[in-house]
């Protein structure tokens, strides 16, 4: 009856409150932005596009939000191995094999066995990520888990 009563009594339909000031705004926690910060292999793993819709990838100590590239990094995408993990070695060697990524309970890959050329390739990839995706934090080892 809202429209007819509004016409008859001179009222108007009130829209939902987007500000949250009136105390009856709809909750919207799902889309809350993530605070930029420190990620451990354990906390990063969750963001693999499967357990969580968002896809985060670590490259040379920095974490990028690659959710926009879901078709590449998401489940069943060509680079889905990288989602939620440290992709540095894979990018350096241009390999998408599972051997190039480590599980979250392993020490962080320091790439010390790689030739300088491969490290440079990883740096180039990092520049690409920097331009394309927002950097959301750093990737660090967790005490008691990774060292």
């Amino acid at each position, binding site marked *: 009856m809202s429209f007819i009563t509004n016409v008859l009594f001179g009222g108007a339909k009130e*829209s939902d409150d*987007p500000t949250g000031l009136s105390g009856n705004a709809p909750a919207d926690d799902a889309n809350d932005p993530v605070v930029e910060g420190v990620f451990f292999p354990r906390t990063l793993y969750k963001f693999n596009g499967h357990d969580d819709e968002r896809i985060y990838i670590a490259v040379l100590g920095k974490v990028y939000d690659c959710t926009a590239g879901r078709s590449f990094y998401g489940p069943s995408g060509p680079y889905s191995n990288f989602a939620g993990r440290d992709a540095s070695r894979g990018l350096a060697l241009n390999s998408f094999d599972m051997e190039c990524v480590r599980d979250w309970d392993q020490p962080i890959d320091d790439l010390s066995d790689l030739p300088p050329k491969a490290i440079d390739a990883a740096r180039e990839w990092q520049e690409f990520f920097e331009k394309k995706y927002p950097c959301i934090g750093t990737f660090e080892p967790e005490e008691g888990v990774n060292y």
Partner: protein
Amino acid sequence: MSLKYYAELAVAVIAGLLSVNFLFQKLVLDYNRDLTPVALSEQANITTVRKKNETALYRNFLVPIGFPLTTGLGLSLGYKIRNGNFMDVWKAIMDVTGAKGNYVSLPGGSAKKDTVRKYSLPEINGMANKIITDVYEKYDVNEVGLNVSAGTLPGFVISIASMIHSVRSEGGKGLLHFLAAVPRQRNEKVEVLVIDSWQAFGMLNKSEEWYKLVIVCDDDASAMKPSEVNDMSNVVTWDSVISGYTESTKFEYDPPKDNSDELKPLFNVTSMCNQVTAFNQLNLVSSVSSFIKTFPLHHELSDSDVITDIRDTFTVAKNNVQIWPKVFSVLLLGGSAQFVTASDVTLDSLAKTTLLVCEPKTLTTITNLVKESNGASPPLQGVKLSLATAFLSEGVMVKVAKIHTPQLEQLRAIYLGEELSQEARILSFASKIPSYSKGQIQSKFTTAQLNQFRAVFGARLVVELYCPFIVMGPISETNFYDYRIFSPSVDAQVTCVGPLNTSLEGKMVNIEGNPNMDVEQRQGMLCIRGFTIGRPLGDERLAQAAKLSEDVAGSEGWIPLTGVYGLWGQDGCLYIYN
């Protein structure tokens, strides 16, 4: 007739009304909405990440995250894209005007200052050429101080002449400098001063000797004219400066290959508190471009548009910064522009207007004029208004309550400029940031009142937020089709000013001393960055601004608007605390 009969009748009537209401909602309202509720709740692009003590970054929904903001006109230079500058804009305006015959209507052209006349663009171009040769080149002028409204003939023409000459000449000679008041202290660079009247001339108090030339925009035969002026070789009137000008349809501009013109200064502006801000060509073109982009599909700017800009004469300098983006946009597409002084508003002065730019106070005045023009209220106006506002609150524009006046018959949009009131505080870039206090917006209407204006004028109404002296053009503007009404408690606390302009992006930062604000609830102090923001002039102020930016907003080009508190709605719009 038994009780049962009445009960059945009542049930039947209620069931009938409910089904009519249901069908009406589904068949009429849902199909006639200008914008769906989903679109209204998704008006911004928001980053998925935020820094500690800050909200996420917000942008207009037209500029996705990761893509560039609106930077300019996107002109081609060989295979490259360039942003353009004022000269490109003016050349395009002069090219278009030959076929369209559009005009600029301005007061102050003759000895009688209130006389309003239409000037063709070749006339304005011719007058500007005359000023350039007879004043700027002859006196080799560094800067031109303008203490006249750019919405008058002298102000408009001198502004155009300066903008042309400062790009063309070596070293940016003839740079425009808008002044809020007649200078009390000497600015060595300002060599020509343009003032409004002999009365203002009297207040110069011998400081006329500082200038190579003082142009007085007043009647030469006025009784107010001091007699000693006749002996002064550096004091002339506007009429004498432009006498003998010839119309000029041609305007040539060949952009340099290195895009160096795009970084040249456009003008400087001095506020009432003597703080100077510099604007450059990029500020202008990005602002023009973002205004053109605001128009929805099938309702773009066209040569049939007439923009009427109504300004208060008491706030000359800040208005002079803001009039250009909209006026140039309309002229670029072959439309016309008219300028009206707020105190002289009549319905006839608004004739043929399609886009109306005004402040809250003036909008009330015009509404009263429209209502009075019909004498007694039109029949059933109360019922029509109630019907129109009910439809509007559902998102459907109906013109049933429009009060018809021949002058405003073609009106399609009203731009209501809301201004941040503490401009001096924002301009100071002081390191101590005050906590929130009421009165951030100069004057506001409730969302229900805005819909009443939409109903009475039968036109869209866009609320814009301005930060005078710092940002050219609006910081944000509401959607053409946003007719939402908020609850009185929301209206009492905040003003919805829509998503950010496409040339800017913004975030809120947490400032200590505001326990009621929480960045997790998207509340805090507003910081902006983008292409329409001016640069504080002077090493000390620039350093102060850079330090404040670093301390509060993490540098990276962010400009904190000191003491401006607001919040991002879940719809992506900016809400400023009242």
